[in-house]
């Protein structure tokens, strides 16, 4: 036993040396900005590359990038805020803005010429970043849109020119096309991978003419004929073996199914273009316009960069935030991460796939503002898991879809 302990201590000393060798703490008089970040793909690397020139021009500024997995991101932010120790800067989604609406640092009064700064951003993106009192809490970096990606080859094999068809189609055309793509590809068991997420599900809710909240966003208004239409259609897609049960009921990743060619289409969002451009080599794919029911709609969203009240280095943080969000840096960041920009005054030359961005953007352009109003709501975000669970209970026929709608309606109203 003694020898063992000696061995362990020896190992310890070695690893300690290894560990000390790497640790070089910075000298005094510098500002080290703590930046909290999550990755969809490699955004943290692109962020660091993008601000490279800023850091060179401001040698006293250092960035301490803290990478946290998305699933734990809110928890980490809440811990830091509760501890009075928020990060100087953080990458946040529109959901996070809604959640931390009172904790984010308003730019009003802290940034000179704010109106001039804001002019270049898309009003839809800015809407997400606006406090109910009208102040601006964050600057948009990427805009995201829910959308549909299709396996062009599989549809072609079934005699469908999906690019042509999708230029103007409704749910019935869509349904028929999915049936046909299965018939035309005997090995293909399912037609559509649909992200396991209420946010993505809501795409068909808006298309059906429904929404979660009432007109002035003061209560739920979920148990409506439009909602039931979307829920029933969603269940039909499962019942008719168009959507594989393994996604909503078994947590298989639709992205992996699509990559493997096991589904002919995928409803996800604009962030997929980056991943698919890197991963898919053996078939042709494209983003297409989504079909219409009552209306055409995508769901808008976005990522932002924000600072928090009580952050240690407010001034330096805001300075970096403004620099990172200016047209030059923003277009570089969006180009290299394959994202739509939250600015309207930049034209981005993507290395490839610009048709796909155009298809998603055309959906986004006709998307009603209520999608953003719904998902801005902190109350709605509190029942996120509940919505997911109730929809699955409906799919499993443990409850009727009407009951699911009523349950979600009631649960949400508890928070208003």
């Amino acid at each position, binding site marked *: *036993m003694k020898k*063992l*302990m000696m*061995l*362990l*201590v020896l*190992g*310890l000393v070695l*690893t*300690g040396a*290894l*560990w000390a060798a*790497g*640790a070089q703490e910075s000298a005094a008089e510098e500002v080290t900005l*703590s930046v*909290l970040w*999550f*990755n*969809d*793909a490699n955004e943290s690397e692109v962020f660091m590359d993008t601000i490279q020139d800023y850091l060179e021009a401001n040698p006293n500024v250092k960035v*301490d*990038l*803290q*990478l*946290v*997995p*998305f*699933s*734990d991101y809110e*928890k*980490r932010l*809440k*811990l*830091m805020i*509760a*501890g*009075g*120790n928020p990060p100087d800067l953080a990458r946040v989604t529109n959901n996070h803005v809604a959640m931390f609406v009172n904790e984010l640092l308003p730019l009003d009064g802290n940034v000179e010429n704010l109106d001039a700064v804001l002019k270049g951003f898309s009003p839809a993106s800015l809407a997400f970043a606006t406090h109910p009192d009208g102040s601006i809490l964050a600057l948009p970096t990427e805009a995201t849109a829910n959308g549909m990606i299709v396996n062009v080859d599989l549809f072609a094999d079934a005699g469908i020119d999906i690019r042509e068809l999708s230029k103007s189609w409704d749910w019935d055309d869509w349904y028929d096309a999915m049936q046909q793509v299965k018939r035309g590809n005997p090995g293909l068991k399912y037609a559509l991978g649909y*992200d396991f997420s209420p946010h993505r599900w809501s795409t068909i809710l808006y298309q059906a003419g429904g929404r979660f909240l009432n007109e002035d966003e003061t209560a739920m208004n979920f148990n409506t004929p439009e909602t039931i239409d979307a829920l029933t259609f969603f269940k039909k897609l499962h019942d008719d073996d168009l959507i594989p049960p393994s996604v909503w009921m078994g947590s298989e*990743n639709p*992205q*992996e199914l699509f*990559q*493997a*060619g*096991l589904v002919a289409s995928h409803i*996800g969002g604009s*962030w*997929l273009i980056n*991943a698919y451009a890197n*991963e898919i*080599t*053996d078939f042709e794919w494209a983003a297409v316009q989504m079909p219409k029911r009552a209306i055409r709609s995508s769901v808008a969203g976005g990522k932002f960069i924000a600072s928090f009240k009580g952050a240690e280095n407010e001034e330096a943080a805001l300075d970096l935030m403004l620099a990172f969000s200016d047209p030059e840096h923003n277009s570089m960041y969006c180009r290299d991460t394959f994202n739509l920009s939250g600015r309207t005054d930049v034209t981005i030359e993507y290395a490839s796939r610009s048709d796909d961005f155009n298809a998603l953007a055309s959906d986004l352009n006709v998307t009603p503002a209520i999608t953003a109003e719904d998902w801005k709501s902190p109350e709605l975000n509190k029942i996120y898991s509940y919505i997911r669970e109730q929809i699955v209970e409906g799919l499993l026929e443990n409850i009727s879809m009407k009951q699911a709608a009523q349950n979600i309606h009631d649960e949400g109203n508890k928070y208003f």
Partner: protein
Amino acid sequence: MNRPRYALRYALFILLTFIFFFPVLWIFISSLKSQSELFTYPLTFLPSNATFDNYREALGSGSFLRYFGNSSFVAVISTLITVLINTMAGYALSKFIFPGRDIIFYVMIATLMIPLQVIMVPIFLLEKNLGLLNTLWGIIIPPAATPTGIFLARQYMMTIPNSLIESARIDGASEGYIFIRIIMPLAKPIIATIAIFSFMWRWNDFLWPFIVISRQSKYTIQLALSNFVGQYNIDWSSLLSMTVIAILPMILVFLLFQRYFIKGLTAGGVKG
């Protein structure tokens, strides 16, 4: 030495190995595939083009060595502390009678029942006030007093005959001497058990590091691993290869310490 009996036992071992080992083997086999091969249908069992690229990439990045170093430091130090203080507590709780003994024991067991998730915020605040945030000591000390280890040590030491301690005491040995010279050697199997567990717990711990560490230079392997699981996507090639590498130190520790699972260690000391 009954041959057929052992043959049957080895057959059972092999069957069980298949069940327990296959999924782990699958992780290893898959770590030799490229990300695109992982999701090509029809699936392949063996990699069409076995490559250690995933490993080269993981090991090649300087930050991985840093995380590995941090994890080793935390796991080794924490294990040394845990083994020492848990056996001390186990001894006190099994071989002495004093007021409040049972209450202390039950309170320790009761701390196991608290879902750590619920008290994360107070823990965070406490670590902050003690200046332990973003330090490795902040994830070494708090979890070192494991109730499970104390429980194991207590139960094991209950089986050590009192007569051994009594005779030492009659010889005038101090309590410290008795613990180090008599109890510790007799407790080797349970020390080995606690060491194996403690190393594994600290090496695999996610929650404590998550609460305490946010600076990347202090990341442990598990924090780094969790970053491969994204909002929409999993970076399988990095996740699988790092998982395989992360198991190796635990295997080493297990094989080193399991030698002390030797039958009847206490037997020699028993005098009826």
